[in-house]
């Protein structure tokens, strides 16, 4: 049975758990930030952060400490900025919201430590506009921290001014992409910019900037509080530089959808059974989307193929992909992505073609339109899927879906293109039979189901 941890989530469910008194009573109460700012140098903070092996929680899994180290060592004429990504909007992802609503002080304290480490005096937390409760809780936490003197000109008596501001989006999934987020923060259309230059060289307002996911930042006080190496060792994938604890979500066709905190490395089966309470209607699992809709689906019949003893995946050679620890590199090793660690479970009996069409509608709607392959490609994928569902597509058109998806991959400014094409290709490859059945007229939309139990 999986054991839940309570490093980030200790105040969840406590009365007024989001208030400063609770944060002081139950968690570090800004003592970690005080110690870091008053006893450590900037370099020491970045070196220590690297030991935590916190892999970016936003989906790409880039090591946080390494990202911090890309910032210029001394602050020149241009100020440095921290931008915190709380534009949570990837279908299947519902973890950052819980932190903002239930433990906003961890986010603010993390911002103070991160700002000091990267040489910034201002942090912007970019929250999607729809999350009004999250924004209100963050604003309240910021006001409480400022009243105590933890933010402002001399936090904890240190001559290192830190201000944290909440910046509201306006409804655009693409603004979760870091370069689009910077454009949006600057008051522009949320269109991704070309890299390089990378944010550490020219980010917000043309200045050196670090963009971190909100959960990444919220984990910082805990990591520094217990010692970053100790924090990393909580994970069963510490040896693969994937450390600490993180939030895992389970949603879709499980009996008890939820967000829980676990040491890095539970398996999909453990998440579905121990955390999610099993599949609705006690059905089998058709497939799982491991970490947000952009991550390719995994089926229970898939196994790890790593006969080479030198392969990092060799330890799990021959095992089901549902029985390997969920880490950034392990899931990459089975040709999917860990993404945001929020697992969407799809039960047997669900129509995979309809699932793909639903997702393609999302991508078509959210493509920013800047790059032709993505703008046109996402619309074509959606239209052809619709045609297949309507029983009007030919085999040639079904085959054409592969070409469209492959035409998007690698031909766009940002990773949205891959985020559309990869899940599309995975559905096409793993459920080819279902797609063909539609084309041959053996399957009909009228018989297709998305729910495992009827909504009532």
């Amino acid at each position, binding site marked *: 049975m999986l054991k839940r941890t309570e490093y980030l989530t200790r105040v969840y469910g406590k009365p007024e758990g989001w208030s400063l008194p609770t944060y002081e009573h139950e968690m570090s109460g800004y003592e970690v930030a005080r110690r870091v700012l008053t006893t450590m140098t900037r370099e020491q903070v970045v070196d220590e952060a690297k030991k935590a092996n916190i892999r970016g929680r936003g989906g790409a899994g880039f090591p946080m400490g390494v990202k911090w180290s890309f910032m210029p060592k001394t602050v020149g004429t241009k100020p440095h900025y921290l931008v915190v990504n709380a534009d949570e909007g990837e279908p299947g992802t519902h973890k950052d919201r819980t932190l903002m609503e239930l433990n906003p002080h961890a986010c603010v304290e993390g911002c103070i430590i991160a700002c000091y480490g990267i040489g910034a005096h201002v942090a912007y937390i970019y929250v999607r506009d729809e999350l009004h409760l999250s924004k209100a809780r963050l604003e309240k936490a910021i006001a409480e921290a400022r009243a105590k003197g933890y933010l402002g000109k001399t936090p904890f008596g240190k001559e290192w001014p830190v201000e944290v501001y909440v910046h*509201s989006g306006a409804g655009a999934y693409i603004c979760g992409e870091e370069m689009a987020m910077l454009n949006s923060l600057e008051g522009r259309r949320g269109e991704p910019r070309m890299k390089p230059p990378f944010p550490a060289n020219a980010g917000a307002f043309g200045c050196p900037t670090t963009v971190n996911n909100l959960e990444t930042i919220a984990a910082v006080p805990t990591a520094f509080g217990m010692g970053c190496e100790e924090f990393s060792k909580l994970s069963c994938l510490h040896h693969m530089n994937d450390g600490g604890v993180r939030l895992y979500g389970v*949603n879709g066709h499980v009996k008890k959808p939820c967000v829980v905190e676990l040491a890095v490395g539970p398996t999909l089966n453990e998440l579905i059974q121990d955390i999610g309470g099993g599949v609705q209607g006690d059905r089998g699992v058709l497939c799982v989307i491991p970490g947000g809709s952009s991550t390719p689906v995994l089926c229970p019949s898939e196994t790890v193929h790593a006969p080479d003893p030198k392969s990092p995946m060799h330890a799990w050679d021959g095992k089901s992909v549902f029985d390997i620890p969920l880490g950034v590199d392990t899931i990459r090793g089975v040709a999917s992505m860990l993404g945001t660690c929020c697992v*969407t479970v799809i039960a047997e009996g669900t129509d995979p073609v309809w699932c793909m069409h639903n997702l393609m509608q999302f991508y078509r709607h959210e493509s920013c339109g800047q790059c032709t392959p993505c703008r046109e490609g996402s619309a074509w994928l959606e239209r052809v899927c619709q045609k297949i569902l309507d029983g009007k597509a030919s085999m040639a058109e079904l085959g054409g879906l592969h070409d469209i998806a492959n035409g998007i991959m690698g031909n766009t400014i940002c990773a949205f293109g891959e985020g559309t094409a990869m899940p599309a290709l995975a559905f096409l490859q793993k459920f080819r039979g279902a797609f063909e059945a539609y084309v041959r007229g053996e399957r009909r939309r009228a018989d297709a189901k998305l729910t495992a139990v009827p909504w009532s």
Partner: protein
Amino acid sequence: MPFALSPDRERKLEEILQRYPTKMAATLPLLHLCQEQEGYVSEDAVGFVSQRLDLSPAHVKGVVTFYTLYNQHPVGKHQVWVCRTLPCALRGAYDLIDHCEKRLGIHCGETTADGKVTLRTAECLASCGTAPMMQVDKDYHENLTRDRVDQILKKLVG
């Protein structure tokens, strides 16, 4: 009549401008203030924002049309957004949408004749663990059942 912010929103704008190194960065927050006041972002409001922040009207209009949440036309008094994306759909979002359409007597994208409710579908609202769900103005309503939806909609339409 030319657009002007109410005095309290004007004060809020002054505070917002302090947060950023450029005036342009206040575009999104200021547009939110305009919409809060009028219910949508009018052509006059676009002109106001461009003057107030020293931007071209084309830039401001470009921003307004890019983001889903800025209304370019007047909408109902209450905004109902029902999430339709996969994790919600797996737990009955399509039935929920049908139910809302029937109860309100309108299709998604439309406003009730009395101008009280605008019903729209939303792309993922980060509520996948409590699906199906809908947003009414600033509030999330999660783990929805038929009865609960009826109660919520009844309150809106009276």
